[in-house]
Structures are given as C-alpha cells and as structure tokens.
C-alpha cells in the first residue's frame, strides 16, 4: 500500500489526467443515464476525437520545442479540400490522393519552419501568416462549387467506416464485433508480454522495479481497462478506421519521442536550446523536422475530417488549431517547453472531446459548453504548474 502511494505521488501529474478522464466519463454517464458510455456513443466520441488527436500529437512536439503552429487548422481544411478535389474532380485513385495530400502537408510544414528556423522569426507570426494563407487557399478551392461532395466509398470509410468482421456469426456472441474482440485480446496479450520482458531486462541491469504484487495488480487493472474498451467498442460496429489510424499515429509518435535519438534531441532542444546546440544537436534541423511532421499530420487530419463529413466545406478546419493546442496543454505539455508526451496529449484530446460530446448529449447550451471547456483547460494548466512546483 505504501509503495502504491509513493508511485502515485511520484506520477501524480500523469495519473491525475487518467483520473480526470475517468471522473468526467463517470459524471456524464450518470447525468445522461448511461447513454454516454453506450457503445454507439463511445464509438462516435472516438471518431470525433480522431482528427483533433492527430493534430494534438503533432502540436505536442511543436510546443515541446518552444514553438507554436497556428496554421494547422486551415491547413488541414485546405488539404482536405484538395483531397476532395483530387477524388471528385480529377478522378484520382484514393491512394494517390492520400499520398499527394500527405506530401503537400509535409511541404507546407517545412515552409512554415523556414522563417522560424533560418531567420529566427517567432513561430506565432510565421504560422499566423500560414493561417491567413491557407484560409484564403481553402476559400479559393471551394469558391467555384461551394461544398465539394466526396462519393468515393473507400475514402469516406476512413472517417465513417469500421473494420470488417471476419468472424461474423449469429450464434457465437451475437451482436458483438468478433474481430474487434480478437484484436483487443491480442493487444492485451502483447501489452502483458511487453511489460514482463521490460521488467526482466530491468532486473537484469539491477534497476528499480515495482514489487511483484503491485506489478501483477497493475497488469490486471490495465488489462481490465483494455478489455472494457474492447467490449464497449465491439458492442456497436467494432473498431472504426479512424480509431485504427489514431492509434497507429500515437504508437509511432510515442515510440519516436521516447525511444529514438531524434526524440531525445527534440526534448533537449525544448529543455535548453543553447545547451542542445553546444552538445552538437542541429537545432535548425530538429525545428524543421518537427514542423514538417506537424504539416504531415495536418494533412492526415484534413483527410479524416473530410472523410467524416463526406465532403469538403469552406469552413473546414476552423479553430482546429486551438482545439489541438488546448488538448496538448490539458495533456500536460509545458508551455515553457521541454516537457510533454504524446500519450498525454491523446488523453488530453479525449478529455476535451468527452466534455464536448457529453455536454451535447445533455443538451447543454453551446455558450456554457465553451465556458466549461475554458475552465477545464485553466484548471488543467494550474494543476500542472502546482504539481511541478511541488516536485522541485
């Protein structure tokens, strides 16, 4: 029990976020008399979160290296419209349209980074220019036709579709999505095996690990959570393509930030750019890479949003950048730079979108919704600063 308390205390910021998410979900479940936690609504919530979470992941890195990118909202709107045009007017195949949009996004991110990295122009200004430019570009693309309808089923499935059930059956567990269940089980097994091998390696090098009892408790607890999520999802249409894409992005970026040399360099540049430069890190190159990745993810976000609406509109992407920034801050990214995590930002995005989704369910007035979201953001940042102060 003592060990549990020390571990909790040590990671209060991290766990605090998960607890906050659990509390918010519980409250909405009670207030909505169970509708919030229903399979259908959770599936909907995750699909809503997708395009913001993807942006928040990229924004996390940008804020870690002490910059900001305001252009990503309209950039994703613009790129989504390009995807729509490519499919419905140029009659491109889905894959070439997707690759084209992602490449375009990467180039756009690089362009934003040039004045920032090369000339030292504040990212706020450089990306504000991008915000205006992409807003104009989006209007230009949609000017002739207004909303561009996308009829391509494959493309639209990215935002609305669900992975197929290969084991559909009316007798065995009827009403449940068996493939999703199976994926959940596989994920849980991989997770448990990974944790065990990680612990073994740590023990080999004589590093501190959790006691046996607490380790098993942790495994059981997290497995149950995973199982629950799987159960809820499989109760509706199963896992959506948006969720698959979101998880893949988070896994890749989590790996990059925590396990690779580039990831270490990113945190070092954020923690102390001067020391990083004098340690032989090319700060300019890191800055450009982070902005390029932000552009790439903006393209992906635009694709997800366009597919979800099955169309590109002149309003697409409006305020996405601020939603992504809010999600990153709620997820524990430090405004001073150098601190933050991709998984944290995913949880931040879930908290943020749960609030929106939950209040919509309850029929809360939109004006109150904004006020609540503002208060949650404020509270999260204050909590962040307080816990960090206490630690040092």
């Amino acid at each position, binding site marked *: 029990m003592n060990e549990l308390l020390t571990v909790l205390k040590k990671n209060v910021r991290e766990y605090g976020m998960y607890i906050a998410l659990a509390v918010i979900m519980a409250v909405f479940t009670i207030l909505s008399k169970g509708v919030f936690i229903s399979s259908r609504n959770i599936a909907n919530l995750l699909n809503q979160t997708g395009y913001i979470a993807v942006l928040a992941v990229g924004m996390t890195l940008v804020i870690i290296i002490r910059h900001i990118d305001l252009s990503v909202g309209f950039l994703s709107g613009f790129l989504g419209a390009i995807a729509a045009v490519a499919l419905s007017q140029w009659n491109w195949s889905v894959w070439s349209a997707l690759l084209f949009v992602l490449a375009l996004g990467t180039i756009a991110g690089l362009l934003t980074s040039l004045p920032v990295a090369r000339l030292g122009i504040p990212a706020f200004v450089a990306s504000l220019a991008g915000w205006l430019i992409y807003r104009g570009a989006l209007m230009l693309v949609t000017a002739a036709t207004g909303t561009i309808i996308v009829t391509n089923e494959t493309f639209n499935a990215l935002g609305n579709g669900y992975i197929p059930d290969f084991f559909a059956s009316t007798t065995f567990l009827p009403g449940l999505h068996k493939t999703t269940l199976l994926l959940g089980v596989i994920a849980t097994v991989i997770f448990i095996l990974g944790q065990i091998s990680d612990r073994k*390696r*740590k023990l*080999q*090098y004589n*590093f*501190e690990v959790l006691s046996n009892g607490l380790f098993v408790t942790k495994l059981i607890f997290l497995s149950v959570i995973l199982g629950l999520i799987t159960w809820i999802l499989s109760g509706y249409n199963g896992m959506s393509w948006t969720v698959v894409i979101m998880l893949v992005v988070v896994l890749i970026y989590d790996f990059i930030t925590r*396990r*690779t*040399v*580039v*990831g*270490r*360099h990113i*945190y*070092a540049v954020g*923690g*102390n750019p*001067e*020391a*990083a*430069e*004098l*340690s*032989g*890190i*090319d700060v300019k190159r890191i800055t450009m890479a982070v902005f390029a990745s932000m552009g790439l993810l903006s393209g992906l976000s635009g694709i997800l949003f366009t597919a979800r609406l099955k169309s590109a509109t002149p309003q697409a992407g409006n305020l996405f950048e601020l939603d992504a920034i809010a999600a990153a801050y709620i997820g524990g990214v430090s405004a001073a730079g*150098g*601190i933050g995590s991709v998984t944290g930002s995913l949880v931040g995005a879930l908290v943020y979108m749960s609030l929106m989704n939950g209040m919509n369910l309850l029929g809360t007035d939109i004006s109150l919704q904004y006020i609540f979201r503002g208060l949650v953001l404020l509270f999260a940042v204050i909590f962040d600063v307080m816990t960090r102060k206490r630690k*040092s």
Partner: protein
Amino acid sequence: MSDNILEMRHITKTFPGVRALNDVNFVVRRGEIHCLVGENGAGKSTLMKVLSGVYPHNDYEGEIIFNGKKVEFSNIHDSEAAGIGIIYQELALVPEMTVYENIMLGHEIRRGMTIDIQEMIQKTKELLERVRLLLNPSTKVKDLGIGKQQLVEIAKALSRNVSLLILDEPTAALNEDDCENLLNILRLLKSQGVTCIMISHKLKEVLEIAETITVLRDGQTICTLDRQKDEVNEQVLIKHMVGRSIENIYPPRITKPSDEILLEVHNWSAFDVNLGRQVLHNVNFHVCKGEVVGLSGLVGSGRTELARSLFGNPDGYITTGEMIFKGKKQVFRHPRHAIRAGLAYATEDRKRNGLVLIQSIQHNISLANLQGVSKNGIVNEELDKQNAVNFVRSLSIKTPGIHQLVMNLSGGNQQKVSVAKWLFVGPDLLIFDEPTRGIDVGAKYEIYTIINDLVAKGMSILMISSELPEILGMSDRICVVASGTITGELDAKTATQEAVMRLATQY
C-alpha cells in the same frame, strides 16, 4: 560637514555558502575620482550593489553614511533619489527609443495629461552638453556607437541630479579613442562637482585618472591608496590585488605532456556581426597532447569568444586565420562537426547553456553522444542507463539515482554531470571554461583530480579560468588573453600571479 561624501563601514554580505564581502570599509571623499580595483570575484560589483540598494539594507551587515547621514536603501529608486547613480557594464538603454526618450525614461516631463516633448528635448540638449555629446536628441540609441551610448547613460544619470556616479567597468567594451574621451568626460564631471567611483580592470587608465584607489581582494579591503601621499604604480597594485599565497589545494600531476602538437591556431581573428566589433585579433597558440594549457585573462578579455569561435562558432562570428587540429586544417561550422572531430567544450555557465536542467542525469550524460547508446537511431534504454550509472560511480556524483533531475543537484555535482557528458564523447581536446566556478573547495579538488586523470590518459585540456591560483596550480603552460588577443605565454613552473596579471591588464 565632513569632506567624505560616502562612508561604508563594516559591510558584510553573504550568499548561501559564500562570504562575498567581509567587513569591508570604503571611504570616498567629496569631488574625487575614486577607482575600485581587484580580481574577478573580489567583491567590487557586490559592494556597489550594496551601495545602490540592489541588495536591500536588511540583506547585509554594516552601515552606509552618505552625505553625513546614515542611509538605508530598499531598492535602486531609493539610492537614485538620494543622488547615487550607477552605470553597469551592460548598458540599460532601450535601443529602439530615441536619446531623449531614454534619458527621460520614467521621469518624463508632463504638461497636463500629455508629455512635453519640446521641453524634454531642450533638457536633453543641456544634459548632452555636460558630457560634450553633440548629437540630435531624437536619434535612436541603436544608431549610436557603444562609446556614445555610454555617454548617454551618463547624461541619463546626470538628469537625476546625481552627486555620486558609479561606473562599473565603463571602458571594457570601448576602443582606445572612446576610452580617452570617457576619461576626459569624467574629469569634466569632477569639475562640475560630481564624485565618481569607477571599477576597472585596466590599470593604466586607473593610474591615469584616479586620485584614490581602493583594492579589494577576496571580499576584503586590502588598502586604500592616496595618489598624493603614496607611491603607486602597476606593480604595487598587482601585488595588492593578487597578494595571497597559493595554498596546496592542487593534486600533484605525475604525467608530462608530450611534444606532439594537437591543436595549433595561427592569426585567428573573429568579428562579431551582431555587436559590430572585432572580438579576437591575431590569436596564436598551441596545445600539445596530454597538456593542460591555462587560458587566463580578465572577464571580457575574449577567452570564451576564442573557445566558442574554435568550437563550431555557434555565434556566427566571421573568422579568419588557421586552425590545425590533429594535423588537419579545420574550420568547424557547427559544434557537431567539432565534436565529431574530437573537440569538446564545457561551457562556463553550466546552468544557462551547459546542461538541460529539467532533464535527468541519464539524459544529460548521453546528450552529446546518443550514437554511443543507440542502434539505427533507436536508443538502447538499458545501455544508456548502465552508462549513466557507470559515470555516476566513477566520478562519484552524489545523487539518489540517475533519474534525478539535474536542477536538483549541487553545483559541484552538476559540473561532474557536464564532465561526464563530454567524457562519454571521448574527445582529444576538452576546452574547460571555468571548471570550478561556483563550487565548493571539496568538489574543486575532485574536479582537479579528474583533470589529472584525463591528461594521464592522453587527453589535452584547454582550461579557461578567472582564478589565478587555479591557473598557476593546474596548468603546464599559461596563455594570457587581453583585449581579444594573446598578450603572452608563460611556463607555469616559473610564472607568478604578478606576471600573469601584468599581461592580463595590458591593452
């Protein structure tokens, strides 16, 4: 009324772990030019900060009598109101504002609700005349040279009706003509009844202008010399400034440097584009394998600029000259090229630009050599940890664990983390800028021992230090820097503090 404008009595000021001023007495007569001299860290600036209220009156012991009255300042505004003006080495002007706006800043002349620009310009003209500065008060400060900016600062102080003007190293950044001009202006102010205290490292100009000279050393007043009564020359001053015996705090070194030359620098010059001035000219020196070369010089002499211009030139100086490293002509365009070639640089201010304070010991140690703990760009976490554990053990870094954030370590242990970072790179030459700044005596000894171990293994060290005993105690050879060039080279065995100081105060 006494003829002393200022008496500071029994001033003692302590910082955590350091006694910066110890029972200092300092008396200034009305209407004189009084120079305050001493080594780096002797306590000159601290004393002036006590006087001007930067350190409030309950923060130090002792008393200050100004104009015959006991004064207790809580902040700079109090001392300014009493008639004390202070001008720091780094000028406190707003570059984008005009001369008159700067001079009147915070004391704008009002007419009703608005600012009376004409009146302010008129007043500024009068003030500028007092410092013989003929220029349009509406010129922007950024368009003035550093010498003229200095005079604007003085005019600004005069606008507050100061009777005592303090100048902290006013000539450090000036060229010879501007220096001469400034000294003339100080004489002029004296004739206008302003008393001046000037801190300076340049002994020639001190002797040129001072009527009285006070020498501080290690936070104590060593002597106050009256030019009319006492025989004063450079030798006398230097003797007073450094006159302490070197205690036996340096571990003996067994190994001898080899004759093989590792680094050679010929006619190395650097121009700082941002400041618009030459920071280094025609520097020539070399470092042999297994040798400790001490780079001595006063603050602002160009030691750090020299180190940084060689180490990948992160400040973007325009450099000319030749650098031969490991027998090959080299120009490093980024620190990473220098590191790859075998050159490392541990910075003088480890908190500002040496370490990532918000990260763990582990992450800081491998920061400059992540290739060493990774494969295909993926960090081997266990290897990284093991490496950190090894360094913590071998350098005896005192910490509960390798996950401890560097900001929670003491100065000495932070310095060891910085050393560990560079040792893990395995350089041939380590430029070690102020290796023992701000760390206690015990940790100093450990750092010296580490330096000896490194040269025993064949590494070379270029040690920049402001502490003369350290330079003499640790170096094989000493190069002295002054005004951006090397003014002399001494064998550490025969060198004396006086000899080094003589070269360091040349200009």
